């Protein structure tokens, strides 16, 4: 059995794994960069070792350092989380060479799925539907024109080395092809140092729907249904749900079977996710397979009752899957909101900094996976994900209401977050009717948000803060053993300073 796991990650996912370890009687070991000495995952682990300087390249991405720590502390297994080194086959191999069980698939499966072209070849060989196209770098404009002709317009140009929407161009008609190809190639060259572009059929307004699979090391593979992940900003997921209101039982079974096929085709083991593009007429196409735990795994845990992280560890320990496909009991509906430190009104620009006030939601149907706490300074060095707020209820309508209630209870002070954006999404009639695709969020934010209505209460409250600050610092009304709250003089003094700065801001905005 596994007795000690090194968690090669940070933030909420590291804490998620710490919790799974604790619940299984396994010793969770954290690693941390200097910026993360006081991070929540370090506080909650049983052991913790420094990796060095704050930049990820010098800490969480340094294979040698991580493996050295794992060996030194006597870990018999390592969980990579998501991001960082989680899909790095060399890392998985380095763990294996050091005698440490990598909690994930074999390096071989990772390598196949990590290459767009190899993955596509393998999938096509095993009858997994892919978007019609060539998936090889185009040699010339003539070749591009020929292939586009065969596929039929509209077509999509994509960077071979790419991702994140860079080097992507939609081509609606033949006469647009030449300039689009040149633009895509030059953008791809700038972004990835590689101008290779390939061509695919364009799926218009598709949904992004993925299937969670679990495979043990004895050849058993099951799926746990789908997750609807169409709500994205900058090609990154923002809100996910399960089930998808677009997927009926027949489609779920079909996509599930194909996902199991895809995993089996590469001898996959452990947890993984097969991502599909789904067209408005319910055709689906293999997009890629993520050979690791997903950020949004909680929605699947809530609707199936299965603990995916514990399952990963049990599979890595050589156990057989304890459930068969027909035992999976789907019940209810779950939606996850990724609470990011970013400003949706400013092109989602990240907002690291100190969290001066934090109020977390709880109560029925609410699950919070947070990596932060009040007083914590969110570092500038990593991802802006603060926490995942996930709600569960009997049906989609109830879960939407529940999430809105929980978002009302939540407050993050001192930095910007996207909490208000979720309130907008969840109140939007289009979202409530399930009318979403991967362009949904762009359309929503193109319109203007609702206005403020409580100017007078704000004025009143500001005045009362000033007077109560004073009272509490004099009489210690709060009975706080620590002493006074913000003193009135401080609040006023800072207000005066603000008055000057505010003025400067005004100038800039004019």
């Amino acid at each position: 059995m596994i007795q000690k796991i090194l968690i090669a990650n940070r933030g909420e996912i590291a804490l998620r794994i710490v919790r799974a370890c604790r619940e299984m009687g396994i010793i969770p070991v954290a690693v941390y960069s200097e910026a993360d000495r006081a991070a929540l995952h370090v506080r909650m682990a049983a052991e913790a070792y420094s990796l060095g300087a704050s930049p990820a390249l010098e800490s969480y991405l340094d294979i040698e350092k991580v493996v050295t720590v794992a060996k030194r502390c006597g870990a018999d297994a390592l969980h990579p989380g998501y991001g960082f080194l989680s899909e790095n086959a060399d890392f998985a191999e380095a763990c294996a060479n050091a005698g440490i069980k990598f909690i994930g698939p074999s390096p071989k499966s990772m390598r196949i799925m990590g290459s767009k072209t190899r993955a596509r070849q393998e999938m096509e060989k095993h009858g997994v539907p892919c978007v019609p196209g060539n998936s090889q770098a185009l040699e010339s404009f003539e070749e591009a024109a020929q292939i586009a002709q065969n596929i039929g317009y509209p077509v999509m140009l994509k960077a071979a080395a790419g991702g994140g929407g860079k080097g992507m161009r939609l081509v609606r008609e033949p006469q647009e092809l030449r300039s689009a190809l040149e633009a895509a190639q030059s953008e791809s060259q700038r972004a990835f140092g590689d101008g290779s572009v390939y061509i695919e059929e364009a799926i218009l307004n598709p949904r992004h729907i993925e299937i969670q699979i679990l495979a043990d090391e004895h050849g058993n593979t099951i799926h746990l249904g789908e997750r609807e992940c169409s709500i994205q900003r900058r090609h990154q997921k923002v809100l996910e749900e399960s089930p998808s209101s677009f997927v009926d039982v027949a489609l779920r079974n079909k996509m599930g079977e194909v996902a199991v096929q895809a995993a089996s085709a590469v001898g996959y083991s452990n947890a993984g996710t097969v991502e599909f593009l789904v067209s408005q007429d319910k055709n689906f196409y293999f997009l890629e397979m993520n050979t690791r735990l997903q950020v949004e795994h909680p929605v699947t845990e809530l609707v199936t009752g299965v603990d995916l992280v514990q399952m990963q560890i049990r599979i890595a320990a050589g156990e057989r899957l304890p459930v068969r496909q027909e035992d999976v009991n789907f019940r209810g509906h779950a939606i996850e909101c990724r609470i990011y430190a970013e400003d949706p009104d400013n092109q989602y620009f990240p907002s690291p900094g100190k969290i001066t006030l934090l109020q977390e939601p709880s109560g029925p149907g609410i699950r919070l996976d947070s990596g932060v706490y009040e007083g914590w300074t969110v570092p500038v060095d990593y991802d802006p994900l603060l926490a995942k707020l996930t709600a569960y209820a009997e049906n989609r309508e109830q879960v939407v209401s529940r999430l809105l209630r929980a978002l009302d209870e939540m407050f993050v002070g001192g930095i910007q977050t996207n909490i208000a954006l979720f309130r907008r999404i969840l109140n939007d009639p289009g979202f409530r009717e399930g009318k979403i695709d991967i362009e949904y969020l762009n359309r929503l934010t193109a319109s203007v948000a609702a206005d403020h209505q409580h100017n007078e209460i704000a004025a009143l409250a500001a005045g009362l803060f000033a007077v109560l600050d004073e009272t509490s610092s004099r009489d210690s009304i709060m009975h706080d053993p620590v002493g006074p709250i913000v003193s009135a003089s401080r609040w006023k003094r800072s207000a005066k300073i603000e008055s000057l700065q505010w003025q400067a801001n005004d100038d800039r905005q004019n």
Partner: protein
Amino acid sequence: MIVKINVGDNPHRVKLERDGQEWRCELDGRLIQVRAQLVRRDVMSLITNGKTYEVKRDQLGKQARIWIEHSPYVVELSDPRSLASRTRNRSTSGNSRLLASMPGKILRVLATEMEQVEAGQALIVVEAMKMQNEIKSPGKGIVRQLVSEGTYVNAGDVLAIVE
């Protein structure tokens, strides 16, 4: 106690008097009875006319914000003197100070000290959490007090002044 408060650009005058368990408040001359309780630092529970408000306070960069029903209101407390100076400043100043809206690292500086720049010209690239943000000149002018490449800035720090 009398406090002058600006909410956004709107000035308000609030007079506050304790009245047993309540506060007798005059907001721009209108009387409002309020029960107010500081429940923790920066969080106040208000009840007025039976309606409850859970009010929060925070600071982003140099802005003080009051949050009501999850909308932020930028507030400043002022006295006549600071108001006066404010008005004076506003009328005479032709400068634009570029302030950092978020903490981050100065990845690139695209202008040089004393350079003549156009409105919309990119001056500085700030990076945080692998995202990059171009800071553009708000108008035509001369660049001064440029921040240096590689430094870390906080929200509200001056990145440059365009005169």
